[in-house]
């Protein structure tokens, strides 16, 4: 291919070319408008940067090729016929292209989000190094504030939320017997918006005045007054948010319209339920954070007065709009994990999920209640008093559906045949840690206590118990569980168990003591603290370094096992759900023939029960048990039509 052809066609060459071009466009627009208005100086680099932050990611996404098909179609040009050449990935290079295969996109999501997980984790290590003793050692206060802000933003917007989208992307279509997602091109676009958001947030460290340093909450009016680094957050969130809305729409349509025949809502695996409810939350709530950040952007760039109290703005409005998204966001970061844990516990304990319908109803209840509790983040914010008690009550009521889930998982374990595999260990670890995080969550609804502990390390402890001990443990459980399906190889069980036990122990040693220092009076988001907290902080820091190192075990296990692990059979866990009935890894087009669903997904122990049947077996058979189907070797599925 000639260079000219490469620059014209979709891909990295054109994406690279798009960067200087879109910067130039931003420059011309900004300078042009300033010249027309006669503003001085003509070259205002803050203004140019702001416009470039919008133009360059768009340029990248167009350059890499997400819009090619739509542009041709919209302009009436002949579209390139869909020959499915974009399906599947034959070499690692294929993962760096715009690809419409949900399995490729799923892997793209997972690898990308783990990259940002590592970057965010390293930032946490620097934060802990600085906090290992009182005083200033490694970083100045500005860098420190930048580090914890970028750490949180990457972990939330570039790791936990999208990695669940990645796992679901891979698993959900297989689970519901669909050949792909409903909108494969939109799916690709959703993915490619993510790295732009993450790179933007990381790049803020190179901005004049340092990275955005107002926390991931970016409370106005601090965020409307700080240097240009803040724009990297304000705009980065727009791309991450747009990505997550598009994915959620895709999941909703896929789950509603593309389920295999016979898969009624009450036969859907709970992971499907979980992603269905999560997607509802995303679609309804995410526009609110987009709005809050647009207000900040407009205040900063165009001189509006949303949060300028002197000009009639309202500072508290920021917090209401922000938390109207960001509280549901914690369920966006938790419900998919609930789904994963239901799959893992049922499969590895060989028992039907206890109270399946209540498990599904409780997800829906959490979605609804989740929209009625946002102001519990604002008990000391100076908002009107009367809203506090109702929000306390609704917050505490969320314990009821959450309790249903925890008790049902326990009841699922009871009288099961429990295989303590790595995914099962992480699921059990999740139950423990999440129960603790849930209990501190109840405590954090009781207003008089919150008046004391809000904005302290108690909050930091709570959020890490629910998001790391909760969400991230379920992510590990899910990745180990579906690793054989995704890679066609088995991970190293021994290393997996070492990873679990070390992270379980050092997780608790890292975040447990934070409860104590918080109640004892250490505020969060401080680069320096009173000497009385020195001992516990030293312990926390040392544990956190070991905790950080345990991640390397996971990384080593995943990489070496994906390359050289023993071949996985199609259904190593003898699970009933559909994704395990196809080869590992699945055929390019998932199914040669769409299965018919004839029963629930977790009928372990029920003689003759099957979840789905193919072809001749369509009539529900009383004798056939799905795990009797002999495990097929990797690649044992029927070849894809184009091979």
């Amino acid at each position: 291919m000639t260079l000219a052809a490469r620059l014209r066609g979709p891909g990295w060459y054109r994406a690279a070319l798009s960067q200087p071009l879109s910067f130039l466009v931003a420059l011309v627009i900004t300078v042009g408008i300033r010249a027309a208005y006669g503003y001085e100086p003509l070259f205002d680099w803050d203004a140019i940067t702001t416009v470039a932050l919008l133009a360059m990611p768009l340029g990248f996404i167009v350059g890499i090729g997400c819009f090619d098909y739509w542009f041709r179609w919209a302009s009436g040009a002949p579209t390139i016929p869909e020959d499915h050449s974009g399906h599947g990935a034959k070499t690692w290079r294929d993962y760096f292209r715009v690809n419409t295969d949900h399995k490729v996109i799923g892997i793209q999501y997972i690898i990308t989000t783990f990259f940002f997980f590592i970057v965010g984790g390293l930032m946490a290590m620097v934060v802990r190094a600085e906090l290992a003793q009182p005083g200033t050692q490694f970083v100045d206060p500005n860098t420190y504030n930048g580090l914890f802000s970028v750490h949180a933003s990457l972990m939330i917007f570039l790791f936990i939320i999208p990695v669940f989208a990645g796992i679901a992307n891979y698993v959900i279509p297989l689970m519901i017997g669909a050949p792909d997602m409903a909108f494969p091109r939109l799916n690709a676009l959703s993915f490619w918006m993510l790295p732009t958001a993450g790179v933007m947030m990381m790049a803020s460290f190179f901005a004049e005045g340092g990275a955005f340093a107002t926390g991931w909450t970016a409370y106005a009016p601090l965020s409307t007054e700080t240097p240009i680094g803040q724009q990297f957050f304000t705009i980065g969130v727009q791309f991450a948010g747009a990505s997550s809305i598009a994915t959620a729409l895709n999941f909703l349509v896929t789950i509603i319209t593309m389920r295999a025949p016979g898969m009624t809502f009450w036969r859907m695996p709970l992971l499907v339920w979980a992603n269905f409810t999560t997607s509802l939350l995303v679609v309804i709530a995410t526009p609110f954070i987009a709005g809050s950040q647009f207000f900040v952007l407009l205040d900063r760039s165009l001189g509006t007065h949303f949060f300028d109290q002197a000009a009639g703005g309202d500072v508290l409005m920021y917090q209401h709009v922000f938390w109207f998204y960001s509280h549901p966001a914690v369920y966006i970061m938790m419900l998919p994990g609930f789904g994963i844990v239901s799959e893992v516990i049922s499969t590895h304990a060989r028992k039907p999920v206890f109270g399946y319908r209540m498990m599904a109803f409780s997800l829906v209840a959490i979605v609804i209640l989740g929209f009625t509790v946002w102001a519990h983040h604002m008990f000391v914010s100076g908002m009107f008093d009367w809203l506090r008690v109702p929000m306390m009550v609704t917050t505490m009521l969320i314990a009821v559906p959450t309790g249903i889930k925890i008790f049902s998982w326990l009841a699922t374990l009871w009288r099961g045949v429990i295989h303590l595999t790595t995914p099962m260990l992480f699921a059990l670890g999740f139950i423990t840690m999440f129960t603790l995080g849930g209990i501190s969550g109840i405590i954090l609804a009781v207003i008089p206590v919150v008046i004391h502990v809000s904005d302290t390390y108690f909050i930091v402890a709570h959020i890490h118990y629910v998001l790391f001990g909760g969400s991230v443990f379920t992510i590990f459980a899910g990745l180990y569980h579906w690793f054989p399906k995704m890679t066609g190889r088995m991970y190293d069980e021994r290393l997996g168990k070492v990873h679990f036990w070390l992270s379980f122990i050092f997780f608790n040693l890292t975040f447990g003591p934070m409860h104590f220092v918080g109640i004892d009076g250490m505020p969060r988001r401080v680069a320096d603290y009173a000497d009385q907290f020195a001992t516990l902080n030293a312990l926390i820091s040392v544990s956190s370094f070991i905790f950080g190192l345990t991640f390397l075990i996971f990384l080593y296990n995943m990489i070496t096992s994906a390359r050289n692990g023993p071949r996985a059979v199609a259904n190593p866990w003898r699970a009933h759900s559909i994704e395990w009935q196809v080869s590992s890894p699945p055929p390019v087009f998932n199914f040669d023939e769409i299965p018919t669903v004839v029963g629930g997904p977790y009928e372990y122990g029920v003689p003759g029960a099957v979840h789905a049947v193919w072809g001749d077996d369509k009539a529900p058979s009383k004798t056939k048990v799905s795990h009797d189907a002999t495990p097929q070797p990797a690649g044992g599925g029927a070849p894809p039509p184009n091979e």
Partner: protein
Amino acid sequence: MLGMALVSLVATAVGIAISLAIDWFPPQASTAAEDIDHLWDVLLIASVPIFVLVMSVAIYSVLLFRAKPGDLSDGAPIHGNTKLEIVWVTIPFIMVSALAAYGWVVLNDIEKKQADDMVVNVTAQQFAWRFNYPDEGKVKSNQLVLAKDRPVEFHVRTEDVLHSFWVPEFRLKTDAVPGQTTKIRVTPSRLGEYEVVCAELCGLGHSTMRQNVRVLSPDEFDQWLASEQNEEGGGDAAAGGGGDQAAAGKEVFIGDGGCTACHTLADAQSASAIGPGLDELTANAEKFGKQEGQSPEEYVRTAIEDPNAFLVPDFNAGVMPTDFEKRLSPAEIDTLVKYLLSVSGGGK
């Protein structure tokens, strides 16, 4: 099963005992602290059994029902149990309702209006607190001084971004919100020295935004108030007389200006490193002033009124608030400039 129940009960008892034995909180220095700490204990007593229950069932299941090597059988095909599900919906519902009701009662208790409470105005700015006592002769102070057992109503305001007024020993906290006056009521109940801490991220100097709180006996407090009232009068006379402008400048530096929060200056006994140190200011003003074509006085004035116009090497734009020109009167800025140039020649 019986053994399991027994072990769980013992674990619950031990768990509650340990959790109550832990000294969680800083000392109780307000009447509200007792109520809140008591509520905390009740929350612990309610939480421990739930956690122990979850853990016991999980651990027992793993111990009792763990698969033997090579066991490919399935568990019992139990799909649910309506009675059990009703139980674990109802009990948590009752528990959280009771706790919420108790929390509400405590909330009303600690926020109750006290008879003849003293109003203290709290003003937050990046990165310092100032206090004044409007009913007690408008005394101004940089440290919070209170009388034991004398109820206070704090009226909290901010001059710039959000801050949060928190004295951990009082257990009470409220954000300082631009454009609003937020209020909290406290009755100090213990003599001693504490710190008021900013709990809401407010910028670079957030972690240094701490100031002294002293709770005195009512007699000592009245003495302190009287001496402050005298000093206040004396200070005004000096400034009014125009005799010692530099002394008035020092008042601004450590008082309304709040400069000590970020700048090191030996004469004012401040030692913060968020902004440039000012002990060498005279020399720097000559050096940088020459670069900018300004006299030292003009240079210092510009640095106060338009801090981003010239940046001292190693310091970033946008750190220093830009509204001192509005916040301070021209006369105050004059005295500040004179004061700074008069005390910062020490290096030479």
